[in-house]
């Protein structure tokens, strides 16, 4: 370890050899001062360490000097492999070192000198004493990872932490504001981070926006983008202004040397997403076009990678025409096929736009009783079976759908969910509808299948083919859609609300999974499917106590059955029911027992499956009709869909 005397001598030596009043120190001078700062800290001379550090850096980044910001001679004339990161230049290296050192030493400065003194030192590095400028000592590291915005803010991050530690955020904000008024974009960015009210925030975002339109320096953009990305945006007008600022910032990329690093594509992508999120698809598409145009074969972000990303961004939002516009018709078609068949979004949470058209024509729902009996007889009904009196009554008369199912009654009993497909349309175009129980008013929740309420009825889980295949959740009103698992299908919410179970379709990881909303973790119960039932089918129900999951399975010999997954106690899977006749059943639940619609010769009837695996036909259901899609809220009433027997059936 360095002794105190040596450290002082080193520091004095540095002072004598460094003209700290010079405009910018050289790389060697800064390196020497950083040596002193580091060694003084090792010798527990923290005051000396902080002062050496500040003196070294407060005049700004080092000039090129004799060993400036140029590639070393050994690289001259060499063919540069642009797919690999370039070695850092001396300036980049010393910058990285300075920031790493500040991050390492700041806790010690704070601990031993106090938060106020540490802040006072650190602020001089970012805000030089006699200059309105802000030193852009932020871009320490190269962008990390593919298309991730580099979020580190280097010394500003240290400054920010120091201001919070010393209760000096207000002071920092005032200083940044003062310098922002002098036209410093970097100061405006720092001011944005420290805003304390909405007015300040909107004003700061607007300053950023207008300055960005004037064409910020290339070296400033990364820092500004980083601050913009972490701005505390609180309302729609701020969000719109932020999206406009992203656009203004990102379109500058056209003036630079293309996608020479990962930052440019990351910036364009982020800006496009921000604009998609405020409905400015025109701006977003423009940015994706720029991304496409600046991506070249052999770059760090290859053209292929950029095309993948562009295709995903546009297709998950259903923007097929725009995909053709940006990528060309041939590629767009190829991507659509690839997109449908692959887990392109695996591992990512995606918040998609609602896909409900304002002018969508809704099916007509008629309250039963207002239709003449003879006319109603040939139509589809939603009925309810009172399990205490064994009597059914009709609730609604629906139009003829080719498929209809997944009834789910809201916890408060006011709305009924279902999915339906119009005649001639494929299952992938199934729509979800919500019918008010009191007056039959119907609203669309967009494309999707197997919708189910959360236990408090504030959210709905469903499966969908669009805008991306998988298991999704949304709010009751259809907003705030989020893709939970692109490999999942047919989900059901546990009675406690904590878990959502679904079938995972990944070839290498097939089976039942349970998502824990408290821990935000996907758990795969260590349960082996019985060899007789190698595949699970859509449609599952939790028991009322949340201890069992009843799931339909496909038998290897043909036909289906019901598997009982015991999730607590001694977990295991048992076969509750076997059927070899090949007709599909639909699964519901009354309290602990699953309810099946069992098809015999084309006519489905509702049965309760008892503990011994015996089917007990439910009394009171409509006779001579096809009854299916049972669901119950309280175990006292069973809602179901009743359809006329198709011509030729029994």
């Amino acid at each position, binding site marked *: 370890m360095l002794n*105190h005397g040596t450290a002082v001598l080193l520091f004095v030596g540095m002072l004598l050899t460094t003209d700290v009043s010079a405009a910018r120190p050289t790389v060697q001078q800064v390196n020497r001062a950083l040596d002193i700062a580091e060694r003084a800290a090792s010798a527990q001379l923290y*005051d*000396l360490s902080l002062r050496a550090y500040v003196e070294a850096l407060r005049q700004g980044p080092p000039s090129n000097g004799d060993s400036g910001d140029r590639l070393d001679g050994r690289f001259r004339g060499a063919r540069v492999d642009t797919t690999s990161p370039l070695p850092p230049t001396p300036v980049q290296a010393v910058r990285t070192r300075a920031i790493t050192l500040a991050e390492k030493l700041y806790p010690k400065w704070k601990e031993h000198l106090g938060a106020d003194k540490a802040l006072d030192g650190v602020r001089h590095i970012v805000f030089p004493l006699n200059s309105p400028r802000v030193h852009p000592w932020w871009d320490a590291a190269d962008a990390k990872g593919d298309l991730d915005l580099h979020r580190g803010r280097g010394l500003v991050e240290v400054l920010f932490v120091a201001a*919070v*530690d010393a209760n000096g955020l207000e002071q920092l904000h005032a200083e940044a504001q003062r310098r922002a008024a002098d036209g410093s974009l970097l100061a405006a960015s720092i001011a944005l981070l420290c805003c304390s009210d909405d007015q300040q925030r909107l004003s700061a975002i607007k300053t950023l926006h207008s300055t960005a339109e004037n064409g910020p320096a290339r070296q400033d953009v990364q820092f500004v983008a980083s601050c913009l990305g972490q701005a505390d945006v609180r309302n729609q007008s701020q969000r719109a202004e932020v999206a406009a600022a992203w656009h203004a910032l990102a379109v500058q990329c056209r003036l630079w040397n293309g996608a020479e690093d990962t930052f440019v594509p990351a910036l364009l992508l982020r800006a496009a997403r921000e604009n998609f999120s405020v409905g400015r698809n025109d701006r977003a598409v423009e940015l994706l076009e720029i991304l496409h145009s600046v991506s070249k074969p052999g770059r760090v972000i290859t053209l292929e990678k950029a095309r993948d990303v562009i295709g995903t961004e546009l297709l998950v939002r259903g923007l097929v025409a725009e995909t053709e516009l940006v990528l060309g018709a041939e590629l767009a078609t190829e991507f659509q096929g690839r997109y449908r068949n692959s887990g392109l979004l695996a591992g990512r949470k995606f918040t998609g736009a609602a896909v409900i058209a304002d002018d969508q024509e809704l099916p007509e729902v008629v309250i039963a009783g207002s239709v003449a009996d003879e006319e109603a007889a040939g139509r589809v009904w939603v009925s309810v079976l009172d399990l205490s009196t064994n009597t059914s009554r009709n609730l609604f008369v629906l139009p003829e759908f080719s498929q209809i199912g997944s009834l789910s009654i809201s916890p408060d009993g006011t709305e009924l969910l279902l999915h339906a497909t119009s005649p001639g349309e494929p299952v992938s175009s199934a729509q979800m509808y919500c019918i008010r129980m009191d007056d039959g008013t119907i609203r669309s929740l967009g494309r999707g299948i197997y919708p189910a309420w959360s236990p*408090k009825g504030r959210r709905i889980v469903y499966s969908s083919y669009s805008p991306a295949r998988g298991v999704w959740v949304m709010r009751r009103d259809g907003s705030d859609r989020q893709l939970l698992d692109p490999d999942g299908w047919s989900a059901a919410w546990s009675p*406690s609300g*904590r878990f959502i179970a679904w079938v995972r379709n990944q070839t290498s990881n097939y089976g039942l999974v349970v998502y824990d909303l408290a821990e935000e973790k996907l758990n795969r119960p260590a349960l082996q499917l019985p060899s007789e039932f190698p595949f699970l089918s859509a449609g599952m129900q939790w028991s009322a106590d949340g201890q069992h999951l009843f799931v339909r399975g496909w038998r290897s010999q043909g036909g289906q059955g019901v598997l009982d997954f015991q999730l607590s106690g001694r977990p295991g899977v048992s076969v509750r029911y076997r059927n070899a006749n090949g007709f599909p059943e639909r699964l519901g639940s009354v309290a602990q027992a699953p309810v099946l619609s069992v098809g015999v010769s084309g006519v489905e009837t509702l049965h309760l499956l008892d503990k011994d695996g015996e089917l007990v036909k439910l009394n009171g259901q409509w006779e001579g009709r096809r009854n299916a899609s049972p669901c119950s809220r309280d175990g006292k009433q069973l809602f179901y869909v009743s359809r006329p027997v198709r011509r030729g059936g029994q």
Partner: protein
Amino acid sequence: MRAALLLLAAHVVLTGWTAGEEIQFEIVRLESLTGRPERIVAFNSQTPVALAVGPERRVAIVEQDRSARRCVYLKAADRVSLGPAQNASWSPAGSRLVVSRLSPEPGVWLISVGGGSERLLDRRGRLAVWSQDGRALAWAREVDGRPNVVIYDLFEADYDVLWSTPVSEFASVVPVAWGPLGKQLLLAGAGEDGKLRVFVASADGRRSLGPELSLAGSKPETVSGGWLKGGHAVVLVRKAGQSRLFQLNDSKWQPLSQLESLIPISIACRPDGLYVLRQADE
């Protein structure tokens, strides 16, 4: 200028600096109020001020550092720091913590213990506590200029405020702990008269406030508490280095003298007993 700096350097060399001494603290578990304390972990620290205990005896402590800011450390022995924060509370399986951070962005944060995702839930919220069933978080936040408590339902991704009509007699209110079934909250508030008030309220906000424990005097350093196995709420008020314990019995707050000999700094209630943070016996 150089001379001034030289003098300063010499001053630092001559004056030096003496590090604060750390002493040993421990976390003990009592199966019941009359049970024998069982040591869970011992650790050296300067000033631990609060405790959070998760499943499998996972521990997070809040420590006040020299600049009076607080840091959360995971597992006292490992001392993995989560940075400056006011408090922490565990998720039911212990894979996440809800933390009231002070920096880099103040607010209520959800963080994964093993690294990974971090999510800021509310920039204006503070002092969040997690219900034992994992469903809800409660944290303090001003609503319409009055102190209130936000109840965030993680399963439904939606929140409510505890009192639709703000409580006017408090200058501040913070949640201390959830009841065992997630139906009640133990709250501590500062009255307009400067008195500390501790009370139990229904988490749905509909019922009136329960019996109040009212304590005059200076502002407490910490208030911790929860529900014991028998269903009684218990609270520890730490003020000026003194610990005072109270238990809610038959709708009355009564002093709880059994544990005062332990000189607890902070307590946490779990289904398997009461955990106490205290200075270790020499």
